[in-house]
């Protein structure tokens, strides 16, 4: 991960943007900032960053009535090569799931340290998904893993495979990818593949529980 990653920070609080900017690794190059939906879409189009750090809640959301601003930015920027990492002030599951279903590659809470955010940025830039323990717990719940539902075929969208469940459980227990790998005797790359596949299911599944669960429960 020697290369620098070009990043745009989208958040309507300038104090948060500058704080985050100061905290990020030197390997993360902040090439732009935006405070609302319209300017975010413009800045992303102009700078074409590797990763967009995107607040879930932004002013200026348009389109779907209850869309959060973050969701609108992702949909408004398409098609783009930039990857999105959602930032959330430990929010309602509904909002986080919406941004992820809109295309974000993961989410991280705003209370995370600069180091954590930087490594998440690198992970997302490298094509991986970023799963917090809470999101993992939510996924286990929403895909019926707790109730014992298991996908028979790996690419079944509405359920998780046994391996995916194991990975999610370990992440929920606070394991880093590396620790998950050593616990399950698999390579980190495999762990990342599983996580990405879960993210894909989270984005594509039509499982009705996803929205129902999300609106009933707060993730954090």
């Amino acid at each position, binding site marked *: 991960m020697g290369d620098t990653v070009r990043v745009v920070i989208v958040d309507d*609080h300038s*104090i948060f943007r500058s704080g985050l900017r100061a905290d990020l690794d030197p390997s993360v190059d902040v090439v732009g900032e935006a405070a609302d939906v319209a300017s975010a879409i413009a800045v992303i189009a102009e700078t074409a960053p590797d990763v967009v750090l995107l607040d879930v809640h932004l002013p200026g959301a348009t389109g779907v009535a209850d869309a959060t601003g973050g969701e609108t930015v992702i949909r408004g920027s398409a098609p783009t090569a930039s990857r999105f990492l959602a930032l959330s002030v430990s929010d309602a599951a509904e909002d986080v799931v919406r941004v992820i279903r809109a295309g974000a590659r993961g989410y991280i809470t705003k209370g995370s340290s600069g180091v954590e955010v930087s490594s998440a940025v690198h992970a997302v830039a490298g094509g991986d998904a970023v799963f917090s323990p809470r999101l993992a717990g939510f996924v286990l719940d929403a895909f019926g893993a*707790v109730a014992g539902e298991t996908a028979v075929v790996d690419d079944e969208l509405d359920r998780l495979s046994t391996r995916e469940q194991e990975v999610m459980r370990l992440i929920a227990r*606070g394991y880093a990818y590396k*620790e998950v790998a050593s616990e399950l005797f698999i390579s980190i790359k495999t762990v990342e593949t599983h996580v990405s596949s879960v993210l894909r299911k989270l984005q594509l599944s039509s499982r009705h529980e996803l929205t129902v669960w999300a609106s009933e429960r707060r993730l*954090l």
Partner: protein
Amino acid sequence: MGGMTTAVRAAAAIAPPPRPSLVRARECLVTGAAAGLARHLDVPAWLVRTVLVLLGPVGALFYVWLWAFVPWESGVAAPSRRVPVAWILTSAAFLLSLTYVPLYGDPYAWTLWGYGGMSSARAMVVLVVTVFMAAGAGLWAALVDRADPGRGVRHAFLVRLAVFALLALLLYGELTRLASGGGTVQLVRTSLPLVGAAVVLSSTLILRFRELSGERVRRIKEEQRAEMAAHLHDSVLQTLALIQNRAGASSEAARLARAQERELRSWLYDGDAPADSDLPTDLRDYAGGLELDYPVRIDVVSAGESTERASGEVAAAAREAMLNAARHAGGEISVYIEGSATSVDVYVRDRGGGFDPDAVPADRLGVRESIVGRLRRIGGSATIRPGAGGSGTEVHLRLTQPGGRHG
């Protein structure tokens, strides 16, 4: 003057119990006004009632004034009245109508006054009073007794049924008289029972209106709360997140900010928590407390729902494990709760120096024993092992609940 000063001084020295404030008793005869006044003046209630009666119209006026302006004593229970006002009014109206109704139909029928003994004016007065009492009974039953735990909806329905029956009887009589002529006066008399019925029916409208305005107030409150939540979310929660972010995970400032965030969040979103909360909620609260006392950051994640309660042994053991981790390891602690209908799993994972069974001090061994032993006693299991990659410790509590339910 001197005596008064002394009295005041004595009073100040002894500090007599304060006079009970003037409120209406919730357990009352009719309105609680007399009982409340009696309590306030420290005299027997019958005395107050006698004086009020003796005062005549003035007493009545004063009573109504008390009724209107003196608040109920504090409490949540709906006031319950021992005197069945609605039935008394209904019975009185029936009795009064007996002096009147026989005038209908057979003109030679017996009445208290005898036929023709009752002048038109007097009959009018009797009719007005009867209708008035009947309507009063109906209104009282619908507006006052409905909320009374001792009477309720059924009672209100019965009273109104009786009232409508009486009014229908009166209407029928007046209509027959109207048919045999009687002019404008008879027309007015005929309309009276209808007016009474309309008044009784209006109580339904009043109730509906009350419900609607209550609903409106609730909605406004809810909206205000949501607005405030949105505002605090945008400003305060963001700032608290920033503080945590800037201050470093386990610094004092970050811990305080985190605790505040937790508190604010639960106030904003959770509403009233039940006394015996579920396992995740309880452990989350406990984690909040630990974060204040120790330099730790505890992430509590839960999936699924379990029947396990905060008062259960699993919760107690999990709290013990969390306390242990906070005290001996510090830093980042992860708690994961997975509950299904038949089992519950709790993982408490720290990233401390790890644990070595031989080097564990006796007190820590005791704590471990209380975790392991506790679970064993209720038929579950607890395993303590080094965390992944050899760093820290992970405690795993597991309880299978045969048949889905267990203490």
